[in-house]
């Protein structure tokens, strides 16, 4: 465990106090809440807005809210959005330019003060996803200043997973279900004979200072044990898994596999997987001019490698077929991401398979590619 080690147990009143304490520090508190038949991320003002008593039923291409009798607030897995909605917003102005009466141009960079967020309920897979985007957007030679500013001001309350979904595979990607740092506060929900409570640990000075403001009691052995058991149990209940092989190598070895044709026949190229992926970061530039012709703006908006426009060069799109676009996405996510950023781009949250309308499952595709490689006599396979 990181931080100063301060720890405590809070009840539902403590959770409510946490939201209010973060808001009182001038932060916009974002957390899970029920809306439009899903557990979405939205600004919340009090504990009552959390999805107490709601769980989710997940499958590839399928998401349904399900009531839970235990009244848990965090017994649900990844929803339709991720935190990139806030840290890496879908559309953002970068600069504007005005032409004066003398014909001179004045460029104004957009430097509005960044929002100061508090994220309540960041799952371990999403904590990893934020770290992956940190590397991409703020960890290289070309830093995205606006992302960095939002990120530096963000207060993260991680919540360990005790109820993985049928589409979860964080254990395969080494990103969950427990947390081991990278948060301001970490929380584990415990519901048993001892009551409905949350075991809290501070991971930063500010986390400790917020913790000290809450109505709380000292962490007890029974609560800690119950929390650790729940998280350990969750690791054994992942609904999906990746093949236990070097995925980077698997992608490299199977570029010409027959399986890519199979998945291409199912892929709608609709772009949903990239939009819901918590690490997909691609954007395109959007130039806006007004009717006068004297004012123009440069915006940036989310783009997807499934969009034909994404690889459009003079002469047409480089990746015109669905085959080439799906392969590009999967091999980047699981393979070439290592070459580019030193880690996998996949954190095992399962969003891409849940929100794919036709339920294309990246774990199933990886297993199929692995089987095809083995059948061809590749790693650990017997030559036919």
């Amino acid at each position, binding site marked *: 465990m990181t931080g100063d080690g301060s720890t405590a147990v809070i009840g539902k009143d403590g959770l409510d106090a946490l939201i209010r304490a973060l808001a009182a520090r001038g932060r916009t508190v974002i957390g899970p809440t029920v809306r439009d038949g899903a557990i979405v991320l939205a600004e919340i003002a009090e504990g009552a807005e959390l999805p107490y008593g709601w769980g989710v039923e997940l499958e590839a291409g399928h998401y349904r809210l399900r009531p839970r009798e235990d009244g848990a607030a965090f017994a649900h897995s990844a929803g339709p*959005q991720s935190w990139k909605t806030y840290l890496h917003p879908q559309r953002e102005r970068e600069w504007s330019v005005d032409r004066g009466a003398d014909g001179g141009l004045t460029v104004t960079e957009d430097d509005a003060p960044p929002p100061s967020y508090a994220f309540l309920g960041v799952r371990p897979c999403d904590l990893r996803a934020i770290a992956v985007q940190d590397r991409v957007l703020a960890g290289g030679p070309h830093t995205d200043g606006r992302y960095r500013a939002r990120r530096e001001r963000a207060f993260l309350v991680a919540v360990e997973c005790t109820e993985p979904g049928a589409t979860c595979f964080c254990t395969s990607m080494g990103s969950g279900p427990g947390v081991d740092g990278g948060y301001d506060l970490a929380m584990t929900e415990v519901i048993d004979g001892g009551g409905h409570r949350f075991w809290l640990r501070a991971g930063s000075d500010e986390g400790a200072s917020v913790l000290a403001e809450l109505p709380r009691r000292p962490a007890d052995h029974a609560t800690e044990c119950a929390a650790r058991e729940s998280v350990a149990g969750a690791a054994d209940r992942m609904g999906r898994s990746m093949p236990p092989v070097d995925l980077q190598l698997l992608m490299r070895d199977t570029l010409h596999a027959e399986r890519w044709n199979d998945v291409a026949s199912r*892929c709608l190229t609709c772009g949903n997987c990239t*939009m819901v992926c918590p690490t997909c970061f691609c954007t395109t530039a959007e*130039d806006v001019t*007004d009717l*006068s012709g004297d004012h123009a703006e440069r915006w940036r908006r989310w783009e997807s490698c499934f969009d034909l426009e994404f690889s459009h060069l003079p002469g047409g799109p480089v990746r015109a077929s669905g085959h080439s676009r799906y392969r590009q996405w999967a091999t980047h996510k699981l393979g070439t991401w290592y070459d580019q950023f030193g880690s996998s781009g996949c954190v095992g949250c399962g969003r891409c398979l849940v929100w794919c309308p*036709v339920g294309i499952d990246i774990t199933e595709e990886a297993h199929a590619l692995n089987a095809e490689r083995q059948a061809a006599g590749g790693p650990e396979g017997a030559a036919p």
Partner: protein
Amino acid sequence: MTAVQERSPRLAVWKFASCDGCQLTLLDCEDELLGIAGRVEITHFLEASSAPGPGPYDLSLVEGSVTTAQDAERIRRIRAASRRLVTIGACATAGGVQALRNYADVAEFQATVYARPDYIETLATSTPISAHVPVDFELRGCPIDRGQLIEVITAYLADRTPDVPAHSVCFECKRRGTVCVTVAHGTPCLGPVTHAGCGALCPTYNRGCYGCFGPSNSTNFPSFIPLLRRDGVETLDVVRVLRTFNTAAPEFEEAVRKELPE
């Protein structure tokens, strides 16, 4: 204004077989309408003024499909008099709902609808403008989106390409944070095969997209149609949902052809 004062570009709006809804979108621009009128000379727009001016025109916006021999001739004259020609809406771009006639007996329709069918002279088909003359840009929708219309006019004035993405409506749902009605509610939705531009209007109000912007630039109907069936859409309804405003769009036509037994 630029330092060199130039003649204002001349704008014309033309109507073919259509309901007028897309032209009305121009009048509906309200806040921007005065700005547009200040930058272009609206030379020909019968819905706004009964005093049309002669060509040539710098930009012609064409609404409606071609359903008569006279209109087939008229669009050639308009094209010849227009520097750029942009079609606006599903009728002009795909033939409109009136293209349902393409699969039926027009004489029978005439006999049913009109007291004196012998007064009616019409073609057997409803065809998009692009089937008759070269088109510089096609704006989708039934009706078109106001923001996209302004974008096309503004882009024309700045001599740049309009920013009108041709990807699926799913992009717009995800960008605005709309929960997927198919995945979360089991609602049939044409979003994954439909051209963006509406801002995901219907899914945002918890109903499925019904494809009024026509096909996106990257559709996969053989994979998509079983999804409609899974959510309870029978064959006849698959055909019906594709045979609306964009029935004659080639991708929709092909998908329907595969659904219907010979």
